[in-house]
């Protein structure tokens, strides 16, 4: 991430985004109906996690190998979810 100046932190803007998104997810859970609220808060959680990973954990400038170390376990978790999901759906 580029330095925004001699004294200004480039990470301050990311922190402000994170705070705004956190407050937006709380507002969405209060204001919106159940299903749109759930979609909104989980989408906002994904955006917040991506901001932390990309900028604070510097994944934005990391190489493919480090990316794969974080993405392969996520893919395995997704396989676990989809594998058991059918059991949940069809055995209600």
């Amino acid at each position, binding site marked *: 991430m580029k330095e925004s100046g001699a004294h200004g932190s480039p990470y301050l803007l990311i*922190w402000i985004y994170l705070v705004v998104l956190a407050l937006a997810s709380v507002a969405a859970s209060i204001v919106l109906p159940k299903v749109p609220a759930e979609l909104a808060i989980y989408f906002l959680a994904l955006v917040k996690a991506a901001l932390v990973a990309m900028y*604070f*954990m510097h994944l934005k400038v990391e190489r493919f190998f480090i990316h794969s170390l*974080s993405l392969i*376990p996520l893919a395995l978790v997704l396989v676990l979810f989809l594998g058991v999901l059918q059991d*949940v759906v069809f055995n209600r």
Partner: protein
Amino acid sequence: MSTAAHASAGAAESTPFPSAKLGIWWFLASEIMVFGGLIVSYLLFRMAGPGWSAELHHNSTLLGTVNTLVLLTSSFTMVEVHRAHGRGEEAKFRLHLALTILLGLVFLAIKGAEYTAHIREGLVPAKSMFWAFYFGMTGLHGLHVLGGIVANACLYAVAARPGGVARYGHRAEMNGLYWHFVDVVWIFLFPLLYLG
């Protein structure tokens, strides 16, 4: 130099990443599986059985939000520690590291207050599947926060020595990667256990 030493030096030269960084990312990969498995199990149980939303409303959205802001802010101070090391700012390094430790302690104190209130109301892990998941996931996450505080306190102790930041400051990147991961886990636990 012995053959083994030559082989070791050769391996180090051919590895494009510092060993510590590679090690922490392997560790985080295993942690993604641990927390990912828990979160997926929680979601599937929740989809399979009704009534979880009612249980969820026992949690204080206010305290959950405050704790989220505390942890997000601690991630900012932690990344500032790493930045201060890169810029050779020793005082800023120690200040932000101390703030990160303090914010971690605030997070645990709030979580402790929440646990106390729940237990007094009889909302214990044996009460229902929701509370078993709640205490299991937040408890494991809390232990990780505690581990991060200890790691940061150790770094602070060596960084406080004369020349400590120059010698040990590079460790802030590893501590930071772990701390930000703990933050990411909470980013998902918050909507799952307080808002959803």
